[in-house]
């Protein structure tokens, strides 16, 4: 594992960077987009994620909404990590991410910058924030699969 990703100062900077300059923010219009809206009462976050999946590959992910640092940053990281991955690859990454947020073992390598979220599981009330965007994307992936069958 990249040693830099063990340094709290760097991890904090990564979160701040994604929060201040979220990647793939802003929704687009078009029939090709599959969209999931996540709003939970137990946090204020209200996030919409949209994606284009073609031939088993995630071509595009965008998101928008009102959210805290952790939701915004984690969703932004998710978009960067999963774009251009195959569904199979994406599912492995998602599994590892959810394991990390669950306080379980995970492969730090493949989560790349998203390991910045590794301590969130200790703040039980914020786990939802760190997973809201990921859950939206998971739903889109699962729906795309069930349609393919």
């Amino acid at each position: 594992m990249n040693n830099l990703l063990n340094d709290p100062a760097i991890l904090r900077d990564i979160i701040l960077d994604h929060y201040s300059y979220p990647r793939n923010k802003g929704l687009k219009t078009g029939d090709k987009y599959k969209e999931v809206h996540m709003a939970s009462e137990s946090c204020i976050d209200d996030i919409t994620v949209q994606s284009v999946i073609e031939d088993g590959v995630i071509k595009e992910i965008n998101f928008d909404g009102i959210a805290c640092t952790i939701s915004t940053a984690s969703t932004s990281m998710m978009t960067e990590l999963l774009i251009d991955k195959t569904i199979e690859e994406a599912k492995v990454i998602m599994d590892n991410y959810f394991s990390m947020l669950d306080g379980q073992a995970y492969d730090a390598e493949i989560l790349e910058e998203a390991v910045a979220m590794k301590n969130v599981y200790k703040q039980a009330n914020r786990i939802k924030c760190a997973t809201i965007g990921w859950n939206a994307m998971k739903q889109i992936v699962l729906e795309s699969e069930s349609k393919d069958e």
Partner: protein
Amino acid sequence: MFDVNNIRKDFPMIVNNPNLIYFDNSATTYKPYCVLNAVKDFYENKTANVHRGDYDNSFIVSSEFDEARNVVAKFLNCDKNEVVFTSGATHSLNQAAQYGFQYLEKGDVILTTLSEHASNILPWFNVSKKTGATIEYIKQDKEGIIDLESFKKQMNSKVKVVTLAHVSNVLGHINPIKEIAKIVRKFDCILVVDGAQSAPHIKVDVKDLDVDMFAFSSHKMCGPDGIGVLYGKSEILNKLEPLIYGGGSNARFTSDGNILLREIPERFEAGTPNIEGVLGLKKAVEYLMDIGMDNIHNHEVKLKDYMISKLKELDNVTLYNPSADTGIIAFNVKGVFSQDSGSYLNNKKICVRSGHHCAKMVPNLINENDTVRASMYLYNTFEEIDRFIEALSNLNIESALDIFF
């Protein structure tokens, strides 16, 4: 092993009043220490509101609240999102009747029984009044037993709602809900069951029974007051309108009057819930499940059989439901008004209920305006029944007046 002496140690009311015989368990029940401790813990260590996790106590309480829903779902064998917390069976049954306001119209029929508790009949009277649907009654014999054959004949495409108690609070029979459901399923009709007197006493599996909605109260099953449950099949809940609107039940609303409700079951739980009630109910359900619903029912059946056999030996007693399936016994002492019997027994430290027990159409069945009701629960004993029978054997119109002299 079911050991009533151990069970009695779990209840502060019994520990503090070992000689007081409490036979009014259909009205409300005693609560064990573990339930009191759950409430106490909420007051002393984690008072907070739910549904938000802004700080630790709020998060902890929200998680336990959630967990309570899981426990109730396990108790009923249903999905977590099919468990709606209400303020009690009455509230649950009114929420269920909301279905009638939405989907019933003139010409439709609501089929129910003459032994219903007010809480499961008045909401439907109201539906009838406002929609024009009519109320009809399932045939019952003079002990309140339902005749399935004639029920089958009463069913037709006009019947849109069948609603009845799982166990009547006056007559104590277990109605054949599963068989009724099978008949109802042949029609475009829903089955609503008032479980206020069954959930505390017998194993209830809503999937196996195949009911559409099922209601009960915590306070009749060792839990706190002011909390109850409405189970609803998710298909039904998804098309049911909330009875109460407010905070916590909506995801969004805008000044032009648009409301986006939350998913089921939260959409039915507007306002700050009875959190201490939910945490207490969770403990009560765990307590009952630990002992085992079948063990509880077995104990009650033994008590009931014993009480009935002893009552039959008394010349001065009229028994209205000798074939009762549960620990609910309705009787009168000849020549003594029910309330006088109640007062007499009270003076012997025996708590029973007299009157119509909120089931004011029962006189149509048993031909008696009011009765004395003894209703038992897991902590009652054979010795208590002996004392009760002894007291009754000496009761007549003259001794009933003893308490005034």
